[in-house]
């Protein structure tokens, strides 16, 4: 029995059914996992008591909160703490599961939420997915990312030590997501190195995406639940053999080190 089942009150019996069947006829966990979290389990009662408008307002506040913005105390009191916790938890679970919208819709309706309310949830999720993913709740530790790359080609005509240079140099300005701006010169020789490195890393990235690991991962969206256990078994880097790590590193060349080796199945 799920942990939430004990806390559900009048709808407890319905919540014990936590698995649904997908198109292929395989049993799947709902997007919140094998056991329903109490905050999500209490959603149908809360929506029934407070109404659809409150649910929508609560969804808005949850998106706001998960995007890393402050939520006003008054707004929270208006929608109710329990409803806010329910919508926040449901949004988090939906994003973590990477479930498709149709599945989320079915799971919410199986939880006894009305089709309109379920649709509100899916629409809010669809609109705010990117914002939530980049919010503090979901984004883990990471390096800043490259946001913008600007360049200019200068041809040096004359300098204090040379009357006639006529040599092109590239002035690069790269902007990172943490707001820092790096400006540097790249000589023509160095540009060749840069071209090689960028092309090589892109090639590695493409090869990696085409490997069995990612194809299997894509397939797992529909078929991984064929196993007797309903829980999905994620393929992680720890399943890779050292032999494969060596071959990947060799393929990537001297400057490449892959933290997750890709096994051949």
């Amino acid at each position, binding site marked *: 029995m799920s942990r939430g089942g004990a806390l559900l009150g009048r709808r407890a019996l319905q919540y014990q059914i936590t698995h649904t069947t997908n198109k292929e006829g395989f049993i799947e966990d709902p997007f919140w996992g094998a056991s329903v979290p109490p905050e999500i389990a209490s959603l149908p009662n809360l929506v029934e008591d407070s109404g659809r408008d409150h649910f929508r307002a609560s969804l808005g506040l949850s998106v706001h909160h998960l995007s890393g913005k402050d939520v006003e105390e008054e707004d929270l009191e208006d929608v109710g703490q329990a409803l806010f916790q329910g919508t926040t938890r449901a949004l988090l679970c939906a994003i973590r599961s*990477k479930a498709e919208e149709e599945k989320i819709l079915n799971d919410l309706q199986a939880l006894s939420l009305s089709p309109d309310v379920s649709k509100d949830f899916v629409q809010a999720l669809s609109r705010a997915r990117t914002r939530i993913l980049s919010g503090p709740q*979901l984004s883990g530790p990471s390096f800043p990312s490259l946001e913008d790359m600007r360049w200019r080609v200068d041809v040096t005509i004359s*300098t204090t*030590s*040379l009357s006639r240079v006529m040599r*092109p140099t590239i002035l690069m300005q790269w902007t990172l997501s943490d707001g820092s701006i790096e400006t540097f010169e790249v000589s023509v020789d160095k540009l060749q190195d840069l071209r090689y490195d960028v092309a090589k890393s892109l090639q590695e990235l493409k090869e990696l995406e085409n490997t069995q690991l990612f194809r299997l991962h894509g397939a797992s969206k529909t078929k991984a639940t064929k196993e007797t256990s309903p829980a999905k078994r994620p393929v992680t880097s720890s399943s890779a053999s050292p032999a494969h790590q060596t071959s990947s590193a060799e393929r990537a060349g001297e400057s490449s080190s892959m933290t997750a080796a890709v096994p051949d199945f």
Partner: protein
Amino acid sequence: MDPKVESLLDPEDPAERSVVEGNMDVCGEILSRASAGAWTMSMMEDHVKEAEVSAEVAEALLRIWRRNEPKIREEATKQSFWGNNLKRLSWRVDVSTKSRYVEDLNEPCAIMELNMSNARDEDKTNTVKFEIDRDMLVQMNEEVNRLQELISTF
């Protein structure tokens, strides 16, 4: 004075030191002018004849210019660029498998490290690390190739 030259001097002969320093100043000035004006060998010979230097120094100057003209010009060019220069680019490809909140990430991304240094002061280095997704990497690849095309037509 360069320590190597210093070690060749007789410490008990101050006159020798002043002669060497004078020769070095004259040679440095002539070589700077030769490099800046892109002198040919015959131009160098003409200028050396006009300069008030001994026959040994004139011969040494001509020999240095004949053998090392490209090196001297390259060094002068290097001194003309004093900004932040890209010295090294390192990269690796990672796959994020899972995080605290997301069980099943499997997102590949490249991590790059730029090493930059000041052309005039090699000790002043700057290292920048960032991650770059496939779309941005594709864009960067296009930009760099475009740059190469532009420069090759120059």
